[in-house]
């Protein structure tokens, strides 16, 4: 009896699949490349966290020892968790609000100014200009910031922005914020352009008089998908940040003050070639981001279809 129902279910599923073959056909080109170059590598990397792998010899299974080491004896990992949380809390929400606020304000401008301002705010995330930031924060009198502050009489002697433990995290956060108006910002800009004109017209008839009301009652409710996209991009960029610090304040940074989890993984993976340990670090980070993403989609859920 049970076998029969199973068979029937199988038949129904098969019919369902056959009925939707156009869907699979249109999905196929993307999925082929996605499976080969993203899904398969991800699946291959998952077990690595439970191994000892130095890239020269085949990986050796070591159970949970990577994770126990991480949580019980790796003091620098503990510090990197703290740095990452501080870093993500300061850059993530600020940048998210900034992305939305700027996208909205730009939308209120004349069309010709829209392109201009969008370019100005987006350009930093296109450019690779660590060299110029190094010169701005350079520790001698030639540094732009130092010479500017000396001119103003705020400081007497040059400050070692990039090597003084008190400043490295701050400097990293500033530069991260500067490049953070990226994918999320542009997606929100596109979202604003996509809001139907008739919505505004209807709103005006129903008595909406200020920009603020328009934002609350018309714009935000019709931007759910873009807000979700920007949130995901923000989680990724603020939690996996590491390149800014590595390029700017050196690696490792003074007293590990700007040492994020991703930097820690880079340290073990590409400096010490302990790939097993590095992927264990990445798995912990992934778990944290996954939970956060679940939480945010719950919050934004009411704006989604």
């Amino acid at each position, binding site marked *: 009896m049970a076998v029969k129902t199973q068979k029937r279910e199988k038949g129904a599923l098969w019919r*369902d699949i056959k009925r939707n073959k156009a869907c699979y056909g249109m999905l196929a080109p993307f999925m082929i490349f996605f499976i080969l170059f993203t899904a398969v590598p991800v699946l291959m990397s998952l077990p690595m966290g439970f191994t000892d792998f130095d890239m020269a010899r085949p990986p050796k299974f070591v159970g949970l020892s990577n994770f126990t080491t991480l949580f019980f004896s790796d003091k620098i990992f503990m510090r990197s968790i703290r740095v990452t949380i501080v870093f993500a809390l300061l850059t993530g929400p600020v940048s998210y609000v900034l992305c939305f606020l700027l996208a909205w304000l730009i939308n209120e401008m004349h069309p010709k100014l829209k392109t201009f301002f969008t370019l*100005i705010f987006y350009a930093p995330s296109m450019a690779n200009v660590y060299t110029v930031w190094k*010169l701005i924060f350079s520790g001698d009198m030639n540094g732009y910031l130092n010479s500017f502050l000396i001119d103003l009489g705020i400081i007497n002697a040059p400050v070692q922005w990039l090597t003084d433990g008190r400043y490295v995290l701050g400097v990293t956060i500033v530069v991260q914020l500067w490049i953070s108006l990226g994918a999320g910002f542009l997606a929100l800009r596109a979202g604003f352009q996509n809001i139907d004109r008739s919505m505004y017209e209807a709103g005006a008839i129903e008595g909406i008089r200020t920009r603020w009301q328009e934002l609350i009652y018309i714009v935000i409710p019709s931007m759910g998908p873009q807000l979700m996209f920007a949130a995901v991009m923000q989680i990724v960029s603020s939690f996996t940040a590491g390149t800014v610090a590595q390029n700017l304040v050196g690696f490792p940074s003074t007293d590990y003050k700007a040492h994020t989890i991703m930097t820690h993984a880079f340290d073990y993976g590409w400096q010490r070639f302990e790939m097993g340990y590095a992927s264990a670090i990445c798995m912990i980070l992934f778990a944290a981001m996954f939970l956060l993403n679940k939480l945010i989609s719950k919050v934004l859920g009411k704006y989604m279809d």
Partner: protein
Amino acid sequence: MAEINTAKLRGSNRQAGRKYGGSVVIFLFLALLGLFMFLPIYLTVIMSIKPVEELFVFPPKLYAVRPTLDNFRDMFRVLHQNRVPFSRYVFNSIFVTVTVTVLQCVFSSMAAFVLAKCRFPGSKFINGVIVVALLYQSSVIYIMQYIVMAKLHMIDTYMALIFPAIASPMGLFLMRQSISQVPDSMIEAAKVDGAGLFRICWQIVIPNQKPALMTLIIFAFQGAWNIQTGSVVFREQYKTLPTVVTQAASSGLARAGVAMAAAVFLLIPPIVIFMLAQRQVIETMAHSGIKE
């Protein structure tokens, strides 16, 4: 009466029915913040045209006293010393960038349409997988990707540069989110008229998604243009511009001018594409008529 009114508003650059004050304040706010945001890029451009002796004077100046193209000339001189002619790198970069951008946009749009608007066995699962793939970052992934490419004999070919960049979860996610806003009634109506999914996608849905599609083009182009050949291509004749230009510029702060020149040079194509695509995005609003 109402018709005349709407026409008038469309003619002006205002959005319908809105006469809110405060635009000047907003403009000033954006301009000031924009100035701050633009400063590092401005400095990059200025330093790329500063002669060497001006690079490290005190106090540092915000402009070039005697602007010069020496840095750019230096950069190209280094590049011309390579065994492979410079035009080959240009060709490689254009070929890789155009292929990746076109394939990524076409494949992602189709897949995003299906994932956003069709329910079929596995659709929920794939939707979830895309977000997970976005969140999953690992330093081992590149090694695994390398292993896959080696198994498929793609190392040291154009394929190693192009194929991994085509299926970007971010591009798909962007399009999916945007297409999910298209009213189902529009698709149902097209189905009643006898249009197949493929036609609905390309003739009805995607033309309506200009802002998202243009944004995807910007992302795809930018990503593809910056592909560095790194560890998957070793033969000189397959290297891309960013790879060789970065090589030419990377010799510490003494070559800061050349590094700036390289940064400026590499920034030009993405900015051009950005301007072209953004103009399309903004025109969408001006001309968008009835949606439903």
